[in-house]
């Protein structure tokens, strides 16, 4: 066996192992759809969820993880706010109409849906994860789902090849209610993992949060 074949075999085994341990071997079956949709709707007990997250960006080429911490806010009818607090302050607001990025000094960069439809496709995809509407997920993703007692794993592969050229897949996992982990597998081999904790449910947004979603 040549050296090249050995490397290929090794690579194959590693990938198979990854795949075997992954939710991606469980495409959502018709029979499971009802329990899956129930689970998806269960996440969002109330329209507003506030909590904390830890973000880990893994860049295999650099053999480095970049870790940051912050708070998140999900408003199922409006969008998502990720507020990074450590090590550097930055805020990202994703709505159906725009994506806003703010830095520590409050400087804003806004992408509007009407100007950059490609970006809005991405934001719609992200919002669909928390929209309480499973049919939105089916529009954007091929869905994989595995449930084991109280724990569950959800795999989402973007249907759009141009999105797949940036994000290969999204994996979410949880135990009872709200997902505690989300992994974005990027096309360049890097990964972004979000660990969610202290999720709490509320009925409405405060005025400051409403202002953020409205781009103020």
């Amino acid at each position, binding site marked *: 066996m040549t050296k090249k074949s050995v490397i290929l075999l090794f690579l194959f085994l590693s990938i198979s192992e990854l795949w075997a341990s992954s939710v991606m071997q469980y495409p959502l079956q018709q029979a499971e759809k009802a329990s899956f949709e129930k689970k998806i709707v269960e996440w969002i007990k109330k329209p507003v969820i506030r909590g904390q997250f830890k973000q880990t960006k893994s860049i295999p080429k650099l053999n480095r993880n970049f870790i940051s911490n912050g708070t998140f806010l999900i408003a199922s009818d409006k969008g998502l706010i990720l507020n990074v607090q450590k090590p550097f302050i930055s805020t990202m607001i994703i709505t159906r109409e725009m994506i806003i990025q703010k*830095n*520590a000094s409050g400087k804003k960069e806004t992408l509007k849906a009407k100007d950059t439809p490609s970006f809005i496709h991405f934001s719609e995809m992200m919002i669909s994860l928390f929209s309480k509407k499973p049919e939105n997920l089916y529009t954007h993703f091929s869905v994989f789902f595995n449930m084991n007692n109280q724990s569950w794993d959800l795999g989402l592969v973007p249907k759009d090849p*141009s*999105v797949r050229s940036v994000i290969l897949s999204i994996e979410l996992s949880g135990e009872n209610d709200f997902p505690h982990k989300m992994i974005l597998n990027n096309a360049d081999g*890097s990964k972004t993992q979000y660990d969610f904790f202290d999720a709490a449910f509320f009925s409405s947004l405060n005025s400051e949060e409403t202002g953020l979603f409205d781009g103020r």
Partner: protein
Amino acid sequence: MGVKNKFGFFFNSKKTIVLWIAIHFFLVALPLYFSPIKINTSLFSVLPAADELQQVQEAEQIFSSKTSQGFYILIGHAELDSALFFAESLYNALQTDSLQASFNLYIDSSATRDLEKFFYTYRYVLQDEYTRNLLLNENINEIQERALQSVYGSFSIVSLEHLSEDPFLLGGNYLKSYINSPWLSGNSFAPQKGVLVATYQNEHYIMLRGMLSKNTSGIAVEDHFLERLFSIYDQKKQNNPEMKIVFSGVPFHSFESSKNAQKEVSLITIISLLLIILLFILIFKSPFPLFIICSYIFVAFLVAFSITLFFFKEVHLLTFVFGTSIIGVCIDYASHFFIDWKGSKENKSSLNVRSNILKSISIGFLTTQAGYAAIMLTPFPLLRQMALFTFVGLASSFLSIVLIFPHFPLPPVNKRKLPLAIADFFISIYRNIFSWKKSIKIAFFFIIIVFVGIGFYQLKLGNDIRSLYTMSESLMQSEITASKLLNMGSSGYFYIVSGSSEEEVHQKEEAFTKRLDSLKNQDTSFSYISSSLIVPSIKKQNETYQAIGKTILPSIKKQLELLNLNPEDSSIIKSYQLASEEHLTVHSDIPSTLDELLQSFWIGKINDRYYSVIIPFHAPSKSVLKEIAQNNPSVFFVDKMHSVGEALTKLSHIALGLIALIYVLVFLLLSYIYNLKASFKIIMTPVSACILSTATLGILNVPFNFFAIVGLILTLSIGIDYALFFKERYKTIRNTMLGVLLCFITTVLSFGFLSLSSFAPVSTFGLSVFFGILYSFLLSPFNGQIGRSHE
């Protein structure tokens, strides 16, 4: 035997047939052998440039031909999957037409990665304006903050895989600006399911982009792929009535208008030909004159075509349209020949017929040819081409009348009879007019003066090119939907930048776009595309490179430490130094998505100059854009619609001026043959007919444009013949009246019918000719002796 007799002997012998054949063979075969047949259908390519655009005419034409080849097909359905299915089946069906056009349905999924790689490769010389300003102002803090935000912040479009070689993520700045630029954001289409999709009024539209290949005809010809596209669409539509399709782009308009024009012209030609055949059979009671006339018109057209092709290397479609004046004049000459041939019992042979009509048709021929010869001297290709075509065609027909027709056998004397009752009817009308009291004549004259006054007052002068073409309702609806979906905001205005080198063009573009940038700051919807946005000048690239060296390099170590990466900065400094000679040019290996864009407005080298185009979007106003380019010798503002209109007006003025000059010369020529009064009367027949025709167009609200003026030129050519026939042939006034009447009816049947066309230029031309010829016919008998014989 004297020279004159020798010539007369030859002139009357059958050797003239050999001479005619030799001349025609030479004039047809040789040019066709050396010049491949090429027909130009583009109006823009043959029009002269407006004065201020003379220098960039060729660059402007290249750009116009590039933009006129592209088109969009948008396939819509309430269900995205159904729209995709239909788009794919249409795309697959059209693959057989890849020689005629190229099609693009799918998005290259590697495009983003290719762009990322490209911007990373050229990161030391290619930065967006915002980052460049930060670099030039040595604002390292903000540059650092932006990089850290991409690394530690949430979702980022910038890949971090090169972070150790590019800790400030310089490679990602331009990518971000590109995605947020009007190049991508100009329309509502976004990638979905591997294609471009937009939603409008609850329908999903999928974009199929197309580009005609260079050799594909813009007009409707046999086996044109658009014909097949429409038939495929019809089939699919039958099975999927909910399917919607939107066509947008110049090729659809060219195809539709040319197809309609072909249909109309075919119908008009068939009807008018049938009526002409009927008329000739009724008058001559023999198919012989008709057969001869058709044959000699065909020969005249063939000679005109081959000579024009030889000199211009192509023949424009409009030359054919206006070259049809050959038919009118040919019929005139031949009608007068055959009227005398059939109607005069004194003739011993056809040589006598030639003698009888030679003076009138020779003077008519010379005056007409003088006009066309003068037009040939103008510097405007279309006008020259039309003049040459008609000049050669008329020369051929004149030669046929003089060299061939005299050898036709005369009909037996007992069969030389013409239906003159109709001529008598008109003669009696004119005799009545001549007998009017002076007061009635004066009153009638005043009525005409008032008519002309009103007509001229109401006359709509000018050439608004928008009014020349009215698109069909379905195509208009298509374009409305497309403009909402594509929303490019292009106004049709653009700038052409010229320079002595590629670098100079880029530098001049950059200097000029600074003025557009200040406009952009005032109006956020305004934007523009220029080649220097993708490929900056070497000077600008060097500035960026130097600024990176000054601002970034000293902070690299610190940034690496901050990112907890290996703080060894030597490899980064080395890669920076290696990049000192690596400049981006229009010839560099640029990703296809960007290169396609660049090539659409980079014109390149023409002769010894280089050119590019800047396209403004959502322009505030034309005057503002025009003013910005004023007094800039390297930047030319182009308003295509306006400049084409201006060019046509200029052409019209020159044509009219030339005709006026020619008529002064013709008057001098005539006054040498006749006296001053008679010459003036002859000249006044077509001139008055033109004045009356112009007034009539004014009263009918028909725009008096280039096409109306070309109709008047034809009126002058034919009208003077009518006047001359009456002047010269007064002895056989009944035959002359019948001959002119025959000419008038055939001309009206051939040209007047064109006024029924829905294609505005053809209709205007037809109306102008119709009224011009009508008035020429009505006025020409005043040159004859109808009144005198009555007296």
